[in-house]
């Protein structure tokens, strides 16, 4: 396993694991919106043998009301303390529940986001239904580049199709992001995932509390 320098926008497996542990811990410390559950670490397993070093991050059960509260969500983007409790009043048909997984790609040496949504009755959301929940910016990109932005591909550890954000340019923009934020070289590894999440979260409408980026 190469301890690849974070300076090129990539992350080693050890760096990913360290950053994941830091994220799980930090998420619990800060004030996170009630609608967001905790991140958990799921170990991978090969033929039932759980791996000691490899796993992925999961944020499961993120509720989103797709029947009209979209506008309110847009308005509240500047304050993390605005509640999203309006979904309780809506009809259950309109509630979409999302699972987000962050998986390490050994090929690209970066984290990759996988997500899927289902209705309250457990029925998986179709591509069209997911599109309704995406921020307008992402919809625009999606219509321009069908094959390279959000696609449905096999989840590397669950062997089932999930939606994913294509990772091939992640290293490039992460390099810029980490340079921009002037994060000290030795601190880049734990700060990698919060910085990365701030970008990919925006693409799929997952709001990441600003506090996550502040030093504890």
């Amino acid at each position, binding site marked *: 396993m190469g301890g690849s320098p974070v300076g090129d926008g990539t992350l080693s497996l050890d760096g990913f694991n360290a950053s994941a542990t830091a994220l799980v811990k930090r998420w619990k410390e800060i004030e996170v919106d009630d609608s967001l559950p905790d991140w958990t670490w799921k170990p991978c397993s090969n033929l039932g043998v759980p791996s000691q070093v490899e796993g992925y991050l999961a944020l499961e059960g993120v509720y989103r009301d797709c029947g009209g509260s979209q506008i309110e969500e847009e308005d509240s983007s500047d304050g993390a303390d605005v509640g999203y409790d309006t979904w309780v009043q809506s009809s259950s048909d309109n509630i979409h529940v999302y699972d987000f997984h962050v998986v390490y790609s*050994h090929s690209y040496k970066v984290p990759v986001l996988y997500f899927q949504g289902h209705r309250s009755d457990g029925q998986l959301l179709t*591509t069209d239904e997911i599109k309704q929940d995406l921020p307008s910016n992402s919809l625009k990109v999606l219509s321009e580049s069908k094959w390279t932005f959000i696609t449905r591909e*096999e989840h590397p550890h669950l062997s089932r*199709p999930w939606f994913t954000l294509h990772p091939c340019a992640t290293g490039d923009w992460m390099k810029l992001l980490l340079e921009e934020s002037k994060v000290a070289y030795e601190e880049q590894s734990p700060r990698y995932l919060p910085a990365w999440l701030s970008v990919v979260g925006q693409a799929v409408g997952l709001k990441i509390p600003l506090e996550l980026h502040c030093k504890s």
Partner: protein
Amino acid sequence: MAAAHEEAAAWSEEAARRVWGGAVPLQVHLHDADVTALPPPPPFLTLGPRIGYLPLLIPVIKAHFSNALPPGVDTVWFEYKGLPLKWYVPIGVLFDLLCADPERPWNLIVHFRGYPSEILSPCEGEDSVKWSYMNSLKEATFIITGNSKSVMNMSQADQVALWQSVTKGNLDGYKNISTRLKLGPFEEDGLVQTASTERQQSSDEPESPGPGRPCRVPVRFYVRGVQEDLEDIEDAMPVSDWESVSYINRPFEIRKVEGRSYITLGHALQTLLPEFFSSDPQNAEELGSAGGGSDTTNSSRSSQEAEPASASLREATKQAKVKLVRVQGIELDMDIPFLWVANNLKNPEYYLHICVYVSTRKQ
């Protein structure tokens, strides 16, 4: 020395011809529920290129069954013994993985309705397959060179021509374009001839990795469990769901080690799948004997380099034992040089696909 190189090149040429020429005889049956004609149509016999993909066969299969199909929109997928087949896995790999005892012809069922969208990612015919191929090629390129630029910068015409050469099995046409990507071959000194190493010589960009950068080989593993008490691999229970196959998409990193002549396939597997290829002498011996005898230098080398197995790994190893390793339909000797395998038995997206059968104890 030049003669040796020429001979090696001739061997590589021959290996590539055989990989590209390899095909699985398929007997495709129309799923009962999709049959609307009496008597039901006879099965369709065709050759599935090992490096090809099932959806590319849909036009000829559909033509054969056209009179028996129900009206409406087709969503075509294939099944083997109840398992929906992943369309983005090359046909040869599916065959090696799912047919413990190579069944010829391979009996598949084609469905034109009821796409299992919870199990298979959506497929929109050849476009999806091409996209999936280009994506894999891009990923392999990133692994080998540290970026995907040579693929991203390909002209549209070259991309189309490259894809056409793969679908038509045209090795010469493929080589014309793929050699320009400068993705190898991997050299035994652990270095690889790539576009980025050339660029390094002309400019010294700060981010370009130094000459000591390890060589990374794109590898995809499909690890399948079989019964522990299995005596004949032919008696393996069919794969009933994809959850029982471990898919591991992980490059193999080669670092130059002083005094090491070459890395064997056995050593590479041990590094990549420590859960199944233990470094403990007993298992190594079994592997060695299965692969046709191992020399002493080989085993002492691997015991020095392998990470000490933790207690739980040791426990896991007791439960798992490698029964069979198959690449391009060949059961490989564990002592074969790994880079020879990577250079000569890879698929046209530069990935080496390795099927591993592991016996597991039911817990």
